[in-house]
């Protein structure tokens, strides 16, 4: 024996050792039993090993021995459980199924032995069994799949074009007409002789054409006379209209019913959105507004882009403001812009944006949009002395004689230049806040007194002495 190395170390060699011991046992009388114990395999777990196959404490008794499945009982059970169709049931079935189906049912009944069902069939009796065996007469929506009585949708169907739609509408309307109307009306060729009916009207002989036209006109007049009476009797009801709107297919599938509520998928070649979302460039703009910045303004003001671009705009106040949030400061630019046409129109626009450029554009557009007429005396100065107050900024504007010039602060100077005022004196009486002074100046310019209104209110005649003195030649 080869025992050169400790064999017990090895998993396999231990098994071999056991075999070797059992093989050697008959020959050797002394049994080295401890080593030769039936150590068949190594244990892979720590729980105690089962000694042998577990046997029940009481031996089973078979159903046959108890007399439960003898031939008679099987027979009884089968007859009770799997009854044959009675003649009355077959009569009822015949009202539901076709003769071929009845034949198939009978063939199936004959093929399957009820005894086999009893012995081999797995009939569930648990509370979760299905409520039927093989009865497809009722559909249980929870269990059964939705029946598809209609064929699948036509894959080649597409939406109708205008002509097809018109045709479809006419055919629908025709279905409500009983008399000879619309599509069923006779045509001109019906009044021509048979040999000319297939040919175009142009090749008809003159007398044939004339006669056909006369007959056709008579026929049309007669039809027109009797139409109203008919139209009251038949014609689509409101329900028909509703059905047309809701259920009539708008695709070229001949209103075929299908098993899917979904329309078939789009075809491979979809036209796409090319050109749909690009704004159309107005030829009246002469290419001045290809980016479309002024389109909205054009619509609001009624000015052309050329006129808008000709206006004078100027940024008067630019502030950097910040909104303190819990995330930190949100900085944005606030811009005040004025716009004027140098001829008595002035507008003010204030806009804010995190992007400085956006704020400038927005304020400029707003200023142009807000342009209002400014009353000007002799197209050069204002009427009287006007005062306006915004916040703590009080502005006093005073009219001045010709040639006085604009002796005003630089922001008011720009405003006056934009609206075409040439002679003015102004004073900030209190706060010099840039934004509020501009606003107050705008307010003052807009609230000038109107001499005519004053005259009407007092019932007096107001005379402009300058015009009287200079004989009306003041300008």
């Amino acid at each position, binding site marked *: 024996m080869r025992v050169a190395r400790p064999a017990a170390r090895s998993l396999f060699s231990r098994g071999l050792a056991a075999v070797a011991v059992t093989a050697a046992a008959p020959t050797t009388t002394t049994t080295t039993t401890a080593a030769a114990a039936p150590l068949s395999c190594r244990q892979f777990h720590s729980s105690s090993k089962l000694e042998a196959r577990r046997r029940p404490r009481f031996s089973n008794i078979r159903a046959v021995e108890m007399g439960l499945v003898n031939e008679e009982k099987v027979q009884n059970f089968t007859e009770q459980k799997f009854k044959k169709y009675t003649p009355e049931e077959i009569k009822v079935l015949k009202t539901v199924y076709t003769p071929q189906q009845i034949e198939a049912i009978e063939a199936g009944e004959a093929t399957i032995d009820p005894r086999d069902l009893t012995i081999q069939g797995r009939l569930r009796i648990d509370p979760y069994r299905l409520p039927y065996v093989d009865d497809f007469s009722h559909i249980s929506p929870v269990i059964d799949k939705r029946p598809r009585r209609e064929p699948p949708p036509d894959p080649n169907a597409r939406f109708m074009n205008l002509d097809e739609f018109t045709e479809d509408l006419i055919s629908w309307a025709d279905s409500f007409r009983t008399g000879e109307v619309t599509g069923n009306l006779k045509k001109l060729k019906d009044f021509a002789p048979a040999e000319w009916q297939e040919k175009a009207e142009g090749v008809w002989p003159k007398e044939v054409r004339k006669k056909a036209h006369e007959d056709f006109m008579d026929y049309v007049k007669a039809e027109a006379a009797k139409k109203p009476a008919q139209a009251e009797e038949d014609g689509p009801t409101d329900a028909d209209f509703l059905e047309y709107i809701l259920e009539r297919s708008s695709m070229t599938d001949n209103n075929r019913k299908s098993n899917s509520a979904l329309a078939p998928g789009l075809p491979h070649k979809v036209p796409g959105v090319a050109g749909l979302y690009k704004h159309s460039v107005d030829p009246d703009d002469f290419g001045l507004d290809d980016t479309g910045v002024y389109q909205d303004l054009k619509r609001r003001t009624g000015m052309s882009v050329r006129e808008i671009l000709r206006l004078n705009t100027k940024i008067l106040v630019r502030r950097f403001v910040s909104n303190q949030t819990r995330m930190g400061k949100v900085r944005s630019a606030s811009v005040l812009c004025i716009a004027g046409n140098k001829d008595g129109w002035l507008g003010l626009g204030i806009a804010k944006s995190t992007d400085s450029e956006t704020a400038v554009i927005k304020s400029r557009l707003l200023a142009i949009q807000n342009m209002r007429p400014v009353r000007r005396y002799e197209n050069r100065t204002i009427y009287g*002395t006007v005062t306006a107050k915004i916040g703590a900024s009080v502005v006093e504007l005073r009219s001045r004689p010709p040639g006085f010039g604009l002796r005003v602060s630089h922001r008011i100077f720009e405003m006056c230049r934009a609206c075409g005022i040439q002679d003015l004196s102004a004073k900030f009486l209190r706060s010099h806040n840039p934004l509020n002074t501009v606003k107050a100046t705008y307010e003052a310019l807009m609230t000038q*007194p109107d001499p005519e209104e*004053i005259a009407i*209110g007092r019932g*007096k005649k107001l005379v402009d002495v300058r015009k009287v003195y200079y004989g009306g030649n003041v300008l």
Partner: protein
Amino acid sequence: MGIHSVANACAHLQNASRARLGLTSLPNNKYNLRLALALHKAGFLSCVTRGGPHPPPLDQLSSYTPEPITSKNVATSRLWVGLKYWDNEPVLKHLNAVSKPSRLVTSGLKDLERVSRGFPAGHLKGLNLGECLFLATDRGVMEVREAVERRLGGLVLARAS
């Protein structure tokens, strides 16, 4: 009666006008009557009528004949004054007394000429567009332009616009 009744009348008329009243009353005295008539002449008031503590009937404001003044009703008689509005705005927007009992402001012809042309003179600011200045002269209460025309100076009562 001193100048204080004029100052009170000015404040009252301005308040009544801003409150959009149609008819209001002033105490019936000579100064008030003259100022009211001057204002009426300048077109700020629609009517000036003497009446009792109750307003005269509105449909006969022009043809109304008040009771003759006796010593019994003189204390309760009032001047009923109609206010004017145009284009949703009062015609008499501002009426400020210039002379007060504590300081009477008088002005000579030279100053009044400047003031009526819109330039400041002395204590008076120049007249603005549509502004009127009322003076009490020895020829009665009148507007500054009439006073200048008549070469008169006097006591400056009120500015109206």
